[in-house]
């Protein structure tokens, strides 16, 4: 099972941004969501998750607000900013180009991605 450190540099950012398109979420939620959607293949350790969240926030792509969690605890919720949405679009384009190129090199027909 690949650990987060083996994720391509920048891929984690992409995953977080994509995950946040569904709405604002706290760090724990982001990690769970990625794990769930990837069917437990991708497990994001907090050691890279929180630095990544803070990095994205400092870059202005996501913003944070304190709110109450589902079990009524104070938690920090992250959501996409307008800049973050634009960023996600370009990152997705890059990703498509890259994965298509890699698939070509490996001689596989790219499967339709959502």
């Amino acid at each position, binding site marked *: 099972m690949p650990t987060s450190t083996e994720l391509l540099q920048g891929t984690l950012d992409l995953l977080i941004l994509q995950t946040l398109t569904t709405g604002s979420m*706290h*760090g*724990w939620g982001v990690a769970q969501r990625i794990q769930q959607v990837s069917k437990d293949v991708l497990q994001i*350790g*907090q*050691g890279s998750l*929180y*630095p990544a969240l*803070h*990095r994205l926030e*400092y*870059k*202005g*792509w996501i913003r944070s607000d*304190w709110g109450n*969690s589902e*079990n009524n*605890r*104070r*938690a*920090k919720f992250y959501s996409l*900013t*307008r*800049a973050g949405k634009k960023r996600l679009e370009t990152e997705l384009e890059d990703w498509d180009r890259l994965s298509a190129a890699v698939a070509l090199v490996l001689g596989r027909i790219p499967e339709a991605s959502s």
Partner: protein
Amino acid sequence: MISEWISRFRFFLRRDLLARRRTSELDEELQFHVEQATAANIAQGMTPEEARRNALIEFGGVEQARERCQEQEPGWWIDTLLQDVRYGLRGFRRSKAFAVSAVLTLALAIGATTAVFSVVDPILFRALPYADAGRLVSVGFTFSSEREEFLTGKFYLDWQASHKPFAEMASQGDAPHPCDLVENNPAELECVKFQAGMLPLLGISPVLGRNFLPEEDAPHGPPVVMISYALWQGHYGGDRQIIGREINIDGNLARVVGVLPRDFQFPTLEQTDVLQPLALDPAAQNTANGGFGIPMLAFARLKPGVSLAEAQAEMQPVFDREKAWLPPPARALTRLSIRPLREREVGDARRIAWILLGAVAAVLLTACANVAGLLVARGAAREREMAVRKALGASRWRLVRQGLTEALLLALAGAAAGLALAEGLLRVFVALAPAGVPFLSKARLDLRIAAFTVVLALACGVVFGMTTALHRPDGLLVNARSTLSRRHVRLRRVLVMGQIAASVVLLAGAALLLRSFQRIEEQRLGFTTHGVMTAQIALPGFRYNTEAKWLEFHLQVEQAVRRLPGVTAVALSDSVPPGGWQSELRYSDLAVEGRPHMAPGVGGWIATRRVTPEYFRALDIPVIRGRGFTGEDSNGEMRLVVLSRLAAARLFPGEDPIGKRFSMVGPGSGTWFTVAGVAEEAKNTGLIGEERPEIYFLRRDVASDWSDRRAVLAIGSALPEATVAGWVQAAVHNLDPTVPVEMVPLAQAVDKLLDQPRFETALLGFFALMGLAMAAVGIYGILAYLTSQRTQEIGVRMALGATRVNILGLIARDGLRMVLAGGVLGLAAALGLAHVLRALLYQTSTYDTLAFVVVPVVLCVVAGVAVLLPARAGMKVEPTVALRYE
């Protein structure tokens, strides 16, 4: 993109305000994560304790996560830097003695280095003040042993026609020559002739007016001059109307067309007031000066991409072809010379500049070693603190950074203090320095020097910071009591030995220079300086314009001075020994009667002086064979000479020279000079030059014997110098108040020649003492530290029966071993490096025994004191107290 920057900026601005809140928020956020994980684990059926334990294990290092999150913030390092700085300063405040001694040591060394660098920078590194100065070269021949290249008109024109490697080429007439400004407010000036191409070649344009036009720089062109900024400001009060005005130089009117920039540096470095066009007449260059053309100094700019070696290779065939024009004996002695203009301007000063820089660098290294030693000692004392910090989760890099920050803080504080010190030291250097150090007036502390100092300080800080910062302890030492870390001690020992070695090298250099200085001072000059006053008289050329007038005036002065009370001897000469200008001949210029002529241009130099009879008495130069000149000779028909012992041996080997005759070759041949006597040698090539044979020509009371409007009066007197000087000046003034007289006691002129060796010796000595003092402090420091660390051990030894003398020996032996090792290392290095100084030494071998005996003795005395102090402290340890220590 912009929003990203705005966001970054916003975070940056609110950094301080938010810092605390953010830290607690971060903690809360991470805490929440752990709680969620715990809840998830419980949901999977774990007990609450187990769930929390697993959540924490899964989570990993909370501290590391927090640090990594904080590192995401733009400019986070500023915070940690400030933190490190605050922490470091707090530490320094706790150990003031350490901080003060470290900063002082650094200030001394950095100050000295900065001052020396500001002096040597223009000599060694700074570009000359010309456009693209790196490509400017001085071109020409060197003849025989002369080192300054020159060219003559015929060769210059030929080079210009075939100057393949040069983009531009221009020349100036020989060296500057004295000239008179004739007007109501007369002045004696220095004039030099420049081709119109000189200023464009150097990339200089006049601040006022313009350069010479090509038609002005041609034979019979309109008479024009350019003047120096100093003359314009000083003599003409900066009047802008000076352009176009006619001034009278040596009786000829010339129109001022331009004013040179204030800091224009003449390629010969001589201060010059007036520039005249060279007006080179190509036709005359094949006939003038024996068919060689007028002598000149030529300069050129290398074409882009042409190296010095390529230029030399390209000019060599031209030069080889031209050599055929020279008389055969001169061919072998003439060499082609193309060298950077800087080399010509700086000359010999390069060597002393490098030596000084090397010496001060050694001092700086010693100082760095000292501070490094201090830091190591402090590091050992803080080992526990560091171990605790590490155990609490500080990364190794963080601790190294802390150490580096503290080292750099010390270095920068040292640099700030050093810069202030350098200003003072620079003034001392300038006051001490001899006239021969080029660009000294330009040495000042500017931004470039300050930048150098800061870089230097940072380099020092990194060097001694790294030696200690990398020496961080393992995490195991938290429990250790203050242990004596072997590694720290070994490092400090090595540092101290290096310091001793460096200071021995400096000491040896200083000792050699001191020995040489002593020899120069003690040498026999061959004449007396005691009670001898010289008066330089320069008759204004436009009023005193014939030999008869020169003769008349000078004889009047001689008689007037002779009438003064207390004057024992008065003589006129064209120059006085031992240094300064004197006229010179080659052996080949002389033809001894009855002997074949020598080949022209060979045989070395002879100094000549044209003197009136009392010269030998005034300077107390003994005549050892034959006789000196007498008053009757002054009116006689015979042209008499007195030879120096060397000249007699050279011109008349194995013969009695008295009564023998010789004449001049070339112009003036046919006049026979008869040898009247032989005088003892008198120093005539400065204080350290090799003695040169000398011929004294009698200056008779005949107009034809007076070929110069300048003369030096040598006056022997028993009265105080100031009295004689005043009287002589008054006597000259009585005869003609417009004639300038310069009074210089001969002893003072000789002393001035000592300036250079004195400067070199004083500076190197100063650096050697600094180095020695620092090495002594270094030895003392480590031994005192070791002794205090060993207090308990000493107590045990004493309890077991060791005497106090045993203890003294124990500690002293340790120190002396370091001194011995460093000393031997240093002596070996000094013997290896001494040859660098050879050119500065006068009659002193680079392996001078006394110097190499004195150095170890001085070292032993100083080191002995530095060793004994802590050893005595060790000896006084009370066993009962020591055993209870800690």
